[in-house]
């Protein structure tokens, strides 16, 4: 597995640079919107990636609730963190595009609001993880993730009742898209997904290491009072423990 990581890293770097070239230079300029439309190649792939990550988070949370599997908990944590980052990218690039095209920064449109609410839910998820005491964090977080997932359809229907200003889905929604543009979009999405997977993976390994260190430190703290006179040697072991 360890050999796969650098391969994935190199692949991601190559894909990202190719996707950047495709999006900024190779893709045809949109007729009415001009170059500002190119933000689409970052906005939409980030959104798809974020939604996939949130879906993985929901799935991992369910697995944790049923099996109490630590790995599932770490996956949930990691996907939520990276998902919030990608969701932030979506929420930032959206208004930058909307200002010249729609003439407004923000509107309470269906998909905008849904993305914002998802972002809020997952930020509160991360806040909960930060604030709860360590032993109960995974369980509480998993429960909140289930609540958040149940909320999504309700948010959808509540905002669906308002008028929708967002461009209709260009893929599979009856809209037409230049095949060249679609190609660039999919390349960008692939690159972003690989990048997200890479970040999640390294964050996963970091979290595993961090928990191991915490466990070692806790064990040492348990052993410490018994030999308080040999504290200097204990500090030495805890230092080596931290390094390992």
């Amino acid at each position, binding site marked *: 597995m360890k050999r796969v990581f650098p391969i994935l890293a190199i692949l991601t770097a190559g894909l990202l640079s190719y996707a950047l070239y495709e999006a900024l230079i190779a893709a045809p300029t949109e007729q009415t919107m001009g170059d500002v439309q190119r933000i689409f190649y970052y906005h939409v792939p980030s959104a798809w990636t974020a939604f996939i990550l949130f879906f993985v988070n929901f799935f991992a949370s369910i697995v944790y609730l049923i099996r109490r599997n630590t790995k599932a908990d770490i996956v949930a944590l990691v996907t939520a963190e990276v998902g919030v980052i990608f969701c932030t990218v979506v929420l930032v690039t959206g208004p930058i595009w909307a200002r010249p095209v729609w003439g407004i920064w923000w509107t309470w449109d269906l998909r905008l609001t849904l993305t914002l609410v998802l972002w809020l839910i997952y930020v509160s998820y991360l806040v909960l993880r930060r*604030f709860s005491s360590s032993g109960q964090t995974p369980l509480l977080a998993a429960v909140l993730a289930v609540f958040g997932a149940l909320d999504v359809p309700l948010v959808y229907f509540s905002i669906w009742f308002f008028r929708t200003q967002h461009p209709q889905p260009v893929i599979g929604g009856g809209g037409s898209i230049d095949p060249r543009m679609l190609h660039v979009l999919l390349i960008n999405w692939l690159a972003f997904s690989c990048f997200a997977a890479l970040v999640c993976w390294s964050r996963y390994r970091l979290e595993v290491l961090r928990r191991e260190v915490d466990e070692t430190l806790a064990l040492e703290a348990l052993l410490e009072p018994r030999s308080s006179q040999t504290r200097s040697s204990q500090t030495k072991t805890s230092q080596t423990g931290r390094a390992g």
Partner: protein
Amino acid sequence: MSTVAGLTRATLAKDLRLEWRSKDAINSMLFFSLLVVVIFSFSFDPTAEESRRIAGGLVWVAFLFAAVVALNQTWARELRNQVLDAYRVSPAPPNALFLAKVMGNFIFVTVLQALMTPLFIVFYNLRALGPAYQLPIVAALGTWALVVNGTFFAAMSLRTRSREIMLPLLLFPISIPALLAMVEATGAILTGEFSAKFWIVLLAAYDVVFTIASLLLFGFVLQAE
């Protein structure tokens, strides 16, 4: 089933008796929402026409913040003298405790609403132009939506540091569709411009979904170590 009903009744009766004697929750909620009403009233100073349009938002923001005050106190009482730990080791089903707490909070917030509604009418010159009989339905469904999730998240935030801050942070994002529905339904009834049916159905769906989810998951939260 009878044990669940019996335990729920016993816990609810205990909570109501405690509240009747201390009046902690209702007093703080009442004063809090009174402040919100007064501050909003003189910072906006709306005409009758305007206030009809914004009243839905004002009323529910006031009740939401007031409900958080009460919800934060629900479980704090059980932490003193390790009552909650005693409950956990007893064979009593967790859902009986949860249901009793939800019903208790529902009663407190409903009493609050009954007391505050005249004040709202006085300060904002309110008169419903739509079908007024729908207002109690919206109030009941909306209060249940706030209280069922609020009680659940209050139990969750017991297990965190700085729990008083945690509750709104967890409750508000999840409650967004319910809040939107309450505000829109109230606005629709007050202005009489459009029908509130869709929002009432949405609120009912929200209540059903989250009541079931809370009942299924409350055991986990209560037993969390």
